[in-house]
């Protein structure tokens, strides 16, 4: 399953919510969709889920256009919105059963599918509870179950971790990893970027309806933070001024500074250059207790590339 977002555009009156964006992701991949509030994430996701119609461009799900063939596309997409179901008069089992019926599952096949989903999302114990009586975490599970009950190839999750407790978040991460292993193509938006870094293969950073960065996590990190930051800690901190002086004279080393008891420097060189710097410092008799690269994460890149603007 290949999901291709092609020159997608959505206007609400004079506001351009999504401005001709393009990206793609495949089966087995979890793609993070990040951006400040009002960046156009939810609109894009709703278009992929066929709830909104795009003003321009298209989304192809294995060649099926959400614009031209929404009924067919719907069978391929499972959408978990940021607002959770809260009907007062329907139980968890009835809710999942309704969606299984709505997607054409019949008889024993439907019963088995609903049962399997209840077990997979761990809601079997609360199947007879009313939706309104559920906690946010449980509602989130039911919402995910609703999206999975007809076994779609693409999953679109809008802020699924918002408001969840740490245990529920860990479980959600495990669930998503499991789904990716089952060859689902997953697009997930979240403001908890450290979590996205752990589970996502790729990322799209969007602001004011425009894509700022897209690609695999490694590519984006490399592209947005080309310099490596290295932290050095000495056994004898009295030697720190000497180390600072030494580093300032070393080739490929820039922006040397002391932070607490650590000396930080940036290097434009590759891994070999870092090894050579370490060898040089050891050769100069510095007693090094720690020498490690501090990798840039998605949060750093997000803060660097976005400006926090909304439309």
């Amino acid at each position: 399953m290949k999901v291709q977002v092609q020159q997608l555009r959505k206007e609400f009156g004079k506001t351009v919510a999504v401005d001709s964006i393009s990206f793609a992701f495949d089966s087995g991949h979890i793609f993070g969709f990040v951006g400040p509030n009002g960046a156009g994430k939810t609109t894009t996701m709703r278009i992929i889920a066929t709830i909104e119609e795009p003003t321009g461009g298209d989304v192809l799900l294995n060649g099926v256009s959400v614009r031209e063939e929404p009924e067919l596309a719907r069978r391929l997409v499972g959408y978990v919105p940021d607002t959770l179901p809260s009907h007062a008069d329907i139980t968890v089992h009835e809710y999942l059963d309704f969606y299984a019926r709505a997607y054409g599952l019949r008889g024993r096949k439907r019963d088995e599918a609903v049962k399997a989903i209840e077990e997979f999302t761990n809601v079997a114990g609360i199947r007879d509870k009313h939706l309104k009586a559920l906690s946010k975490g449980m509602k989130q599970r039911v919402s995910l179950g609703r999206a999975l009950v007809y076994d779609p190839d693409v999953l679109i999750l809008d802020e699924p971790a918002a408001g969840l407790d740490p245990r529920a978040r860990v479980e959600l991460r495990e669930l998503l990893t499991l789904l990716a292993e089952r060859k689902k193509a997953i697009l997930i938006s979240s403001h908890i970027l450290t979590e996205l870094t752990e589970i996502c293969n790729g990322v799209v950073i969007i602001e004011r309806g425009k894509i700022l960065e897209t690609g695999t996590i490694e590519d984006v990190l490399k592209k947005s933070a080309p310099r490596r930051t290295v932290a050095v800690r000495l056994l004898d901190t009295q030697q720190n001024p000497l180390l600072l002086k030494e580093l300032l004279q070393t080739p490929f080393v820039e922006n040397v500074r002391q932070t607490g008891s650590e000396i930080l420097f940036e290097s434009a060189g590759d891994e070999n250059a870092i090894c050579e710097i370490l060898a040089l410092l050891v050769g100069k008799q510095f007693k090094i207790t720690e020498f490690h690269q501090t990798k840039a994460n998605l949060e750093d890149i997000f803060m660097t590339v976005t400006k926090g603007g909304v439309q």
Partner: protein
Amino acid sequence: MSSLFPHLTMLPDERRHWEANPVLLKELRQAMRNSFLTSSLMFLLGSLFLVWLGILWRQNFLIAEQSGTGLQAVRAFLIILTVISLFCIPLYTGIRFAAERMTPAGELMFATALPVWRVIRGKFLSAAYIQILFFSVFLPFLAVAGLLRGVDLPTIFFILLCLFIVVCVAVQAAVALACIPVPFVAKLGLGILFTTALAGGNWGIIALSFFMLQAGIATLMGTAVFWLIFVTFLLMTTAIYLILYGLSVAMAFDERHMRRHCRDMIEKGLLAPA
């Protein structure tokens, strides 16, 4: 035609795998837990019971003077049943559907593989079932009233049939109003107009019921004018129902569905070779 009434073109093998409309099942499950509906049902039951007690209380037990007791009871029952079913069921269906369409969780119902016409029909059918439930509450009282003098059962069943048809059309009108893509305030205004129309319709139906109870269906059936009026009524209600149904389906579709629907109609209907 086949998209509106698929069961008519269904093959025998397909019928074997037929399953009830998912929306109908969901609506009935939810209706049984809905406090407005259960309260209405209890109110209907309580009102019928109290009216029945009132009539018996005022009753003169001299047999010679009992001739109109049954008719009096049935008239009172019909007023209650007409008012409650013509108000509660369309308003319940319409308000619930409109509210559902406005919530993000509700709008997901329109983004399933379920065609919109099945959603609309499921809503309508659930209201029809609920109406039958309301009528079933009325029947035991009618049975007891039937033991008294002055009750013409064929006339009452004919009135119930007409009431059922009118409530069905009112329900479809409520569904159509819920589908109109206008802001909440405009929809509220339309709802108030609709409720006023229902109130007017109530008095019309009650007056007509009383006339029929007075005249008796057997006498009326002997005249050509009755059949002319009855057939016109059936044709008109069917036509209004179909128009409202079509409008509901059309309005519930979003633009791209409408475009595709129109394109398909032109390609497959008008441009198809004879």
